[in-house]
């Protein structure tokens, strides 16, 4: 093959991948995750604010909850934080934080400073659990049903509107 065709071939492959990515997105424009519809990976991690009692995800069985992946280094997490705090105040759906590849001191400071929307915050210092969940970047939020199945994955910052439409509506309607 003509070596001058190689760049074009590489680009065509990339374009196909991106095209499939767009086609996979549903009408609400969320990249469909292969994890949706599958059991949420279980984990036991240190609890950020209560170092003596590790957080075990199995204790959430039987309840709807949201798992929110965040880090103090993440600018968009700052953007969505107010919406999370408001969601906590509304009290319809518990939120578990997954503090991803972060400095625990900064994380504690962050929650004290901006408010703590989480029922518990699990510390994923090395990002192993985030890998199980296929987290690409923070923030990402998963909706998990009482049977422990991932029902929905939201990528990017939450807003009150998205929370109501994609999380509360789903959790209440089923």
């Amino acid at each position, binding site marked *: 093959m003509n070596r001058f*065709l190689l760049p074009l071939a590489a680009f065509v492959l990339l374009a196909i991948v991106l095209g499939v990515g767009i086609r996979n997105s549903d009408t609400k424009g*969320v*990249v469909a995750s292969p994890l949706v519809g599958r059991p949420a990976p279980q984990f036991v991690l240190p609890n950020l604010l209560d170092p003596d009692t590790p957080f075990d995800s199995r204790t959430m069985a039987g309840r709807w909850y949201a798992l929110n992946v965040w880090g103090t*280094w993440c600018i968009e997490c700052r*953007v969505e934080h107010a919406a999370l705090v408001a969601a906590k105040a509304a009290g319809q759906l518990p939120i578990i934080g997954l503090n991803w590849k972060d400095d625990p001191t900064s994380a504690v400071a962050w929650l*004290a400073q901006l408010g703590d929307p989480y029922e518990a915050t699990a510390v994923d210092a090395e990002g192993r659990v985030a*890998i199980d969940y296929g*987290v690409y970047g923070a923030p990402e939020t998963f909706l998990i049903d009482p049977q422990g199945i991932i029902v929905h994955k939201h990528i*990017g910052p939450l807003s009150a509107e998205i929370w109501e439409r994609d999380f509360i509506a789903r959790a209440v309607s089923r």
Partner: protein
Amino acid sequence: MEMLPELGHFALVLALLLAGLQAFFGIAGPAFGRQRWMSAVIPATAGSAVMVVTAFACLVASFVGFDFSVAYVAQNSNSALPLIYRIAAVWGAHEGSLLLWIVLLAGWTIAVAFGASRLPQHFSARVLGVLGIVSFGFLLFTLATSNPFLRLIPAAVDGSDLNPLLQDPALALHPPLLYTGYVGFAVAFAFAIAAMLEGKLDQTWARWTRPWTLAAWAFLTVGIALGSWWAYYELGWGGYWFWDPVENASFMPWLIGTALIHSLAVTDKRGLFKSWTLLLSIIAFSLSLLGTFLVRSGVLVSVHSFAADPARGIFILAFLVIMVGGALALYAWRAPLLKSDAGFELTSRESFLLFNNILLVIAAATVFGGTLAPLISDTLGLGTLSVGTQYFNPTFLLPMLPLIALASVGMHANWKRGRLAARGRPLIATGLIALAVALAAVFGYYGGRPGLALASFLLGAWLVLSSLVDPFDRLRRRLSMPRAIVGMTLAHMALGVFVISVTAVETYTTERDVAVAQGESVEVGGYTFRFDGIDDIHGPNYDGVHAIVQVSRDGKPLATLHPEKRRYFVQQSVMTEAGIESQPGRDLFVALGEDLGAGRWSLRIQVRPLINYVWLAALLMALGGSIAASDRRYRTARAPATEPVGAGQGSTA
């Protein structure tokens, strides 16, 4: 006054039509040999630019005049927002930054049109035609999916304010500079496409292209440095680079742009690497296109937001396929025709620049892989992986360390012939001095932790000294000192300074997170930080507190720092502003944490050696680039009378 948004919208539509004419006449005129079509390119270009500037001015006026009946203004401004940030808010979100991109493209296009009087008319028509296609695509995208002039009915009483993170002087300037760099690569791209349409690429072509590429690269360098500096003082946890997808999106075109600058030098001086230079021109702009879309669709969501709005996603993809796919198809067809008629020896300068290019492309590929591969594998359902600093730091250093070592040697190699031995003495001498400096720094000044730090100090110092050999030699022999040489020397020295400062920051930063009550002191890195309490502060659209921290060394007071925490009224978000005292050799950095009660506050204190030199080095690099871009050689370059297509035999680059 009240019709300004409609006027702006109308101007955008006219700009689109005129850009279409510019593209059509520019491409079809030379193709069919129609003289009158070619003559119409400049008027169409000028008209489109005027309309674009008009539209932009209308949007600025809507922001300045608090017109909350415009949805985009209502979303990104507020009645308490100061003037400078009302202007910066124009590019505070997706729609307006697209418009900024188009305005900057119009600016570059007009500059090219002025410079084009020296070029053959069919060539300049093609260049402007390609720029017209780019402009047309962006205008269509804006009008179809991202119109900033849409009305909000009923009008908002007040706006929801500009994202407080963006209310900062550095970040107000960051997008225009960064985009000027991105968009500047469109010029090199247009020159490359025009050369392929002509089926001819000679050394004159490279001489025309070089200053544009250097200028774009210099802007991009300053833009990236400004963003990095902002992250340092605003985000409140120190550090200057996080391998965030957005940072990577601007860094990839920078790396390829750097390769392009060096490859163009070879094409200019020796008529080699022709097809490679074309390919780099295409890739640099393609990555700029990708980066533009990634950056402004929202910060970390960037990569994801490819699909955030399916209509936008499909349009972006279609545009990328047409532009990049079209350019690469043209490349596959035309590049084989471009023969180079010269060879070179292994230790000649051509070889070193070839290695430079290979290593830079590898570096860009590792960043590209780290940035996009997780998304790609997720999309394809191949399972997921997640990458961060642990991936980027080592994989990026791997090509970079040899690159810096080769630069010190390669600068002294001759074109064509490999007579490096003649330059052996200054190379060895500078190498030995650099080793002494590195040893003194590691074991004497900073006291320990050799290993990678020793190697990096050695390489950085060697690069600085080695860059100076040639200019000193020229001075001693009373030879002329062209700006291209001055610029190159400055940029290479700056790279050496950059390596040294990054090494110092990464190896010798001391950091403590402490809880202090009023009057308490802590020692960090030989400095005493005394916490003298908290004061209230009041800004136009925020209030908050700042701490008073007295810094002293050996009992002598040095500075008073005021790290702040601001709460912005409308979005109710809390922002930190670090307190920083810059000493000649280090930065003293204090960020204010939370109120621990009973008058105690947490502070993050860092002493970061040489961190300012990281950004200073970047500015020097950009300065070097712009000095080189202004070299007389480029301004006087005219087309040769005739040049046969694919002349000559011999090796191809």
